[in-house]
């Protein structure tokens, strides 16, 4: 049942993404409104799907990688809806939804049944997963705003106004959004991953260094740590910060990919 509802939600997201992109390209506000309605509809279905899965399994639906990704999307879309509404950044969906879809459509292929040591479903793991999850959701948004920044910046530098110039928010707004999302993501990611490392170190011993998901996560954390310190200490300009945010997200995707392909201790 939850799989069906989830597919409905995904379909709504697909339609919303198409509408949002079309609204951006053809500068049609009516399509933008349609995109927002579809996104909201998708998110409501998604909420139902997550809830149903939790009830069917009788446990929090965040113990397989697929479940985690699903909830990451759920949080990211929620924040997108809030950002679009509060700050009037209507083009945000056009950048965020394709990312959400890439993650969501990846779910059926192998991700769906990958369990995160369900036998060890202790409170520790739940806290670990929940913290990482909030961090990842913020990073999805971080990527979306960084991508928008780079595109807008390029058009302003090239001095040829086009699609992005006419539809996107100001550089300053995007830059602030990139910084805020990173600042929110980082503490969650740090504590979440820290808990995981401590706990896994105790449980797995030397196997920790052989777990690809754990290894990639640490690399990802380092990239984001560098970005944040560059911004705070080095006072980086917006462009460099945006490029780093994009690199960080690529590592994030690689991390999820590694979790699927290699299936170390995380996936046993």
């Amino acid at each position, binding site marked *: 049942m939850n799989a069906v509802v989830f597919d409905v939600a995904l379909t709504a997201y697909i339609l919303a993404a198409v509408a949002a992109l079309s609204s951006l390209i053809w500068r049609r506000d009516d399509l933008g409104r349609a995109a927002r309605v579809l996104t909201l509809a998708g998110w409501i279905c998604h909420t139902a799907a997550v809830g149903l899965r939790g009830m069917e399994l009788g446990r929090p639906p965040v113990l397989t990688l697929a479940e985690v990704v699903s909830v990451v999307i759920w949080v990211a879309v929620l924040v997108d809806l809030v950002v679009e509404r509060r700050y009037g950044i209507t083009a945000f969906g056009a950048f965020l939804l394709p990312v959400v879809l890439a993650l969501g459509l990846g779910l059926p292929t192998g991700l769906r049944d990958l369990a995160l040591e369900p036998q060890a479903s202790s409170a520790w793991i739940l806290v670990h997963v929940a913290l990482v999850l909030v961090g990842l959701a913020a990073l999805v948004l971080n990527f979306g705003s960084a991508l928008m920044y780079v595109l807008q910046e390029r058009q302003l530098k090239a001095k*040829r106004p086009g699609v992005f110039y006419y539809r996107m928010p100001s*550089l300053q707004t995007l830059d602030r959004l990139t910084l805020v999302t990173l600042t929110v993501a980082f503490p969650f990611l740090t504590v979440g991953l820290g808990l995981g490392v401590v706990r896994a170190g105790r449980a797995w011993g030397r196997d920790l260094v052989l777990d690809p998901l754990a290894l990639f996560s640490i690399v990802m954390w380092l990239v984001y740590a560098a970005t944040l310190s560059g*911004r705070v200490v080095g006072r*980086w300009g917006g462009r460099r910060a945006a490029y780093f945010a994009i690199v960080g997200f690529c590592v994030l995707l690689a991390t999820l990919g590694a979790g699927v392909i290699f299936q170390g201790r995380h996936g046993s």
Partner: protein
Amino acid sequence: MMERLFVAGLSHHTAPLAVREQLALDEDKLREIVSDLVGRGTCAEIMILSTCNRVEVYGVADVPGEARSAAFRQMGAQRGIGLPTLEPLLYTHGGVEAVQHAFRVASSLDSMVLGEPQILGQVKDAFALAQACRTVGPVLHSLMSQAFAVAKRVRTDTEVGRHAVSVSFAAVELARKIFGGLDGRSVLLVGAGEMGELAARHLVEEGTLPVYVANRTWARAEALARDLAGTAVPFEELLPVLVQVDIVITSTAAPEPIIRAAEVERVLHARRGRPLFLIDIAVPRNVEPAVNALDGVFVYDVDDLRSVVEANLRERQRQAQRAEALVEREVTKFAARLRDLEVVPTIVSLREKLEEIRRAEVARALARLPGADPATREALEALSQGLVNKVLHGPTVKLRDSSRAGHHRRWIEFISELFGLHPRGGAGREP
């Protein structure tokens, strides 16, 4: 009603400025002319729109051609221009086309600068003037109120008037694209070129403060600073100011760049990642082109600003296509409504006529049934009313349908003759 509506005039499309400026009359003269034309019965309704880009007469008359000639003869006479000179410059639209023209003009789709906002106000003024002279009747009233509504929709639903089409406003818009809100951003104006000053003024109007002014002649810098409520800074101390400000406008006559990439790069570190927007209005340029390559620094010279303006105009044209489609739909709706208005008097008088007959017949029947109980009376009423409604149904539907299809005049005449009607205020003319 539709057939009697017309618009005639000349505009930047058809007439040179020399003629347009001659015909631009003051309000008193316009008042005189519209009152005179209606007073004599040449027109039933009239208003005159007179701006520097167009002189147009919107009117309702039995013989539109005559009204048009009379109006332009009178206007030309004020300046000694004969009608034969004006005649070849005039265009005339009647009926649906007049409606479309009115909507397009009010929506600024017929303007010289596509989407410029002044025209709507000018149309409103012309309408108010005609109203004050009591030369506006039901047709012009509904036409113009609808034109205002359409213009508003065009403005909100499309972006035909949204993007800057002058160099100095394009600069303001770019600043907003970089910084978001302009409140509290600081500006440095280097040099005292006219265009630089204009751009600075626009920025100050948008809320940028404080303003710094630098000039080779200190007195000039001080004067300009006073003018813009800013601070004069010595020309030799530009770099420290560059650390603080967000927007720089340069318009000096210096033969070589005065702001170089190497200097800006040094300043950037102290700026801690805040973006810097340089508007270089000087020719030759005051800012080295390489400055644009620095992270967070944006340099626009005059050519860049012009190309932005051109892109904005193209964007307005794109949006104009959507606006035209919107206008088209509104014209169709309005024409249908007008035609509906035309058949209404016929329907009303048909209903009155049948009602009259019904009452008379019921009274006659009751006179023959003196002992009728209330139930019988009620039955008679209901029977007769039912009959009338059934009979009315066919012609009513036919009239409304024909008005939608546009050939209602024939049906109005036909039905009027058939039932011997004399509709009041309607278009069904008696033979």
